[in-house]
């Protein structure tokens, strides 16, 4: 991987120049939270944002979109022929790990046309981060990335160390090579190494996830699950904001009069009662507690069996967003019999 330096004062000018490639998106403050938005005013970019409420998946499988149109005479028309290119700046390592997970789900076994189409036109500029009290990526080894981005920025106080992660990234960089410094000295490298050591030690939330699949398995019948089940609002928030939740539902909107019909795809959640209802009326997870168990089993156990690593990337969104404080940190602590605040 090749590296360059970019002085901080050039950042905004550089990002603006990338509009020649497509839309430039990044985290922007919205009240107390951050949201990935298309940037028009670069002074609004929040370089300290940690977890935009909706993660990268909103670009790749939008919450709601049309897949195709159809007419009464039996003709179909693809509703997603192309997507405007988006360059997303400010993406942190854990989110890129989530992105790689989505890639496995949607690109490998059953390549999903809609995912692929969005994915192709979503370019990623990673940005280093300093964790807060809700980040626990280090516990999942997702606090660092070596792939999955086009350009990777590491904040070294007065400049960024910029890694090129793909040929697209190379294009992006060469576009304004005049702003970059090609000379990386050993001093820069040392600074980078020092920074990494320092930063990796900034995690305040550390979860010991050793043997988590076994713990999940063995605690399946614990009474404490029922308490968690009673607390869950079944509001589905966790599935919407989790970067690795990908379930969707489909609805056909029939056309009225001469309008074509359209098929719509929208995010779904296994926390909803109807999710596991099948024809004939049987519901595999009628009870709230069973749905909560499934969610956490999926994040911390089943995914490991299937893909060799947990589905959770430690981004802390569930910690920040669940209104009744059910989240991965809480659940692992509970299952391990540790003290938790009620």
């Amino acid at each position, binding site marked *: 991987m090749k590296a360059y330096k970019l002085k901080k004062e050039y950042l905004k000018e550089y990002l603006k120049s990338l509009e020649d490639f497509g839309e430039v998106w990044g985290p922007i403050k*919205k009240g107390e939270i951050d949201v990935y938005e298309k940037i028009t005013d670069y002074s609004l970019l929040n370089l300290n944002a940690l977890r935009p*409420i*909706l993660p990268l998946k909103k670009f790749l499988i939008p919450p709601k979109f049309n897949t195709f149109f159809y007419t009464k005479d039996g003709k179909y028309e693809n509703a997603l022929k192309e997507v405007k290119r988006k360059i997303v700046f400010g993406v942190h390592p854990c989110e890129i790990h989530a992105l790689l997970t989505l890639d496995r789900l949607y690109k490998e076994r059953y390549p999903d046309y809609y995912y692929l189409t969005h994915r192709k036109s979503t370019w990623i500029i990673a940005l280093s981060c300093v964790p807060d009290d809700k980040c626990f990526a280090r516990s999942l080894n997702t606090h660092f990335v070596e792939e999955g981005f086009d350009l990777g920025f590491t904040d070294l106080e007065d400049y960024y160390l910029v890694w090129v992660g793909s040929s697209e990234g190379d294009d992006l960089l060469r576009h304004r090579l005049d702003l970059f410094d090609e000379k990386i000295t050993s001093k820069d490298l040392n600074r980078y190494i020092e920074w990494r050591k320092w930063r990796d030690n900034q995690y305040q939330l550390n979860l010991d996830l050793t043997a988590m699949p076994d713990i999940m398995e063995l605690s399946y019948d614990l009474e404490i699950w029922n308490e968690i089940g009673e607390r869950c609002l079944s509001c589905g928030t966790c599935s919407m*904001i989790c970067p690795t939740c990908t379930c969707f539902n489909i609805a056909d909107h029939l056309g*009225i*009069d001469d309008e074509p019909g359209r098929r719509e795809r929208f995010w779904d959640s296994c926390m909803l*009662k109807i999710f596991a209802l099948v024809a004939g009326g049987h519901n595999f997870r009628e009870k709230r507690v069973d749905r909560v168990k499934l969610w956490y089993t999926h994040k911390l156990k089943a995914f490991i069996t299937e893909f060799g690593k947990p589905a959770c990337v430690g981004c802390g969104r569930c910690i920040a967003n669940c209104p*009744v404080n059910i989240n991965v940190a809480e659940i692992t602590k509970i299952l391990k019999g540790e003290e938790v605040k009620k």
Partner: protein
Amino acid sequence: MDKEKKLKIGFYEFSGCAGDLLTIIHNEDYLLKVWNSAEIISFRLATSKRDEKANLDIAFVEGSITAEEQIEELRKIREKSRILIALGTCASFGGLQSMYSHLGDFSSRFNSIYPHKFTILKPIESKPLESYVKVDYFIPGCPIDFKLFLFNFTRLLRNLPVELPSYPVCIECKWQENNCLLLKKIPCLGPLTRAGCQARCPTHNLPCVGCFGPYEDLNLPSWLKTLQENNIPFKELEKKIRMFFGVKVKEILSKLKNKK
């Protein structure tokens, strides 16, 4: 569709603000399409032309029943309609006008507000259509959401059942990328309320008031607990639920009592 095959549809209103039917009328881009795709037998807000004798395939009925005379009228509509649909929250659950129905005898409540003799209609406690006739489907909302109406209108035209969002407002709220108000202990009814509104209120930083009626899998005890723990009294929370959940409140609260 050829003319003979068009379904015969009627729109009716009882006690309410007419907001649901107005929602249909105000979507001018679609009004003609709605008209073209069915044979509209009655729609008083839109046309004086109507046929009270014709049998109907579908009757959309807005408003709650608040007078004795309306019961008879509703029964007549039911008799002549193959499918009857409660349109809006009043028709579905009783509406705002049934908010205080738990506070003792109706006539004393009524007389305290209208002390003079009332001669036009014989007023009774506000109740949803279902209290008097069989209702095939509900399309709640105060007012209804036009997109949700259209989605179901087109389904009905093709003899498909009505389908409502089977998730609470929170789902749509997250799609709108809002910070949850419950995190700030603001009593938002989002997790208790059926979606369909695009989470309008939370998106404007206002708590959901539940105007689409209860979500079938709501978890009231947990919602109450998290707010009561932050010193919001039960009475205040109960009042919020009563605003739009109408006759459903009794059922929801009784589950709460059973649990205790």
